[in-house]
């Protein structure tokens, strides 16, 4: 598969932007803390799954990490040598992809053009991203006529083509049927295997179990647990996580 191709990342090695460090990050709206004093360091490597109930603050946490939202308190630091260009080194995939009214290939081209990638290199990267996401045959299809699963894969292709160091995925499979969801998971895993740091949210336990190298459990805006996959699912430490895994209301 395309994921194994060494050329996916830019030929010139880039300065790293990780770890990403959050210090005492809170996000308050009208005095209500939607994120509450989060301290977190995300280094390269493990596929991190942010797990939690609806309204736990998962999407918000991702947006704060990416820089789409500024926390009302606390700091978000990119720490690697490339920290100054961190915004160019990460990509975001939303729950509902917003695609432009043009072909699938043109949708992958758009963010590349925004970042000033030269034309010859763009063609190459589009081709590779579409191949990695299984969309080559649909390259010239209007993006908005693709199925939900294909659209979400296209959103992933947009991220893939940017060769980012970090990809944030916000409930990427929440609106997909099980086969489309599995197909997406495989691509995300392949992307992770190229060395891209993945941070994704989900409220789907089975998906978290399949995907996560490590789980970050978020409850009412607070980061209650951070543990490797097996130990989180086998021996959750907090009562809240135990209740969530059992499908019970939070204590």
């Amino acid at each position: 598969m395309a994921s194994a191709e060494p050329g996916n990342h830019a030929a010139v090695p880039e300065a790293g932007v990780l770890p990403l460090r959050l210090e005492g990050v809170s996000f308050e709206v009208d005095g209500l803390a939607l994120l509450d004093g989060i301290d977190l360091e995300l280094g390269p490597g493990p596929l991190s799954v942010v797990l939690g109930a609806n309204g736990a603050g998962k999407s918000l946490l991702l947006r704060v990490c990416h820089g789409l939202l500024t926390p009302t308190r606390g700091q978000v630091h990119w720490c690697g040598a490339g920290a100054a260009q961190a915004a160019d080194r990460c990509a975001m995939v939303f729950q509902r992809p917003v695609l432009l009214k043009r072909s699938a290939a043109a949708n992958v081209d758009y963010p590349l053009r925004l970042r000033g990638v030269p034309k010859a290199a763009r063609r190459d990267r589009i081709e590779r991203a579409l191949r990695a996401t299984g969309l080559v045959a649909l390259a010239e299809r209007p993006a908005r006529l693709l199925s939900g699963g294909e659209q979400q894969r296209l959103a992933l292709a947009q991220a893939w083509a940017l060769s980012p160091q970090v990809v944030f995925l916000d409930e990427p499979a929440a609106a997909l049927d099980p086969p489309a969801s599995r197909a997406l998971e495989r691509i995300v895993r392949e992307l992770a295997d190229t060395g891209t740091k993945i941070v994704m949210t989900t409220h789907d336990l089975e998906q978290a179990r399949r995907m996560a190298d490590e789980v970050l459990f978020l409850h009412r805006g607070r980061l209650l647990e951070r543990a490797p996959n097996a130990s989180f699912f086998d021996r959750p430490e907090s009562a809240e996580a135990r209740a969530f895994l059992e499908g019970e209301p939070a204590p």
Partner: protein
Amino acid sequence: MGDAFAQAFGLIARLDPDLFEIVSLSLRVSLTAVGLACLVGLPLGALLGITRFPGRRAVVVVVNALMGLPPVVVGLVVYLMLSRSGPLGSLALLFRPSAMVIAQTVLILPIVTALSRQVFEDLWREYGEQLRAFGASRLRAAATLLVEGRYPLATAVLAGVGRALAEVGAVIIVGGNIAHLTRVMTTAIALETSRGDLSLALALGLILVGLSIAVNGAAQLLQEAAGRGVG
């Protein structure tokens, strides 16, 4: 009455030169005005639609209110500006097509601005976060949304075309309805009706209604194309 209709169709059928001189001036004045209004109104609509600044809501309220400007009042104000003793009197534009273009531009500008502001605002709600995540500047985002929203934006522009072609109050004040110089469809209809030359008035009326139907039909088609979400 029947005679007047017959003569009106006759004028159209034999492409009466006076008739078509009037029609062509109408189109030239109104389309130029709409073009100018778009040059200013679309960027202004984008600015109001996708940026937030103090006082923005007040500006939106004012622009919306200006959509209902009475053409005669616009005509009067532009007349005062352009009259010999007015601030722009030295340009000697009054009673020329340029004055009519200016008046109609003033009339159409709020329409294009307000309607496109709404379009840009809706598009921004849909695309904004994604475009920001891509790292697009507001200027770049506006250019992208101009393309993405081309059908609803074209509908906004067509609303301006319809208004410009149909209005009489502004152009009659600043243009003066001078034969072969500033006589357009609406002013000619007003004059010929009052003089009793119903055939020319009717012929122009038929053409005006035909244009209005064409403009609205085009708007309808564009809305359907936008609804299909392809384009």
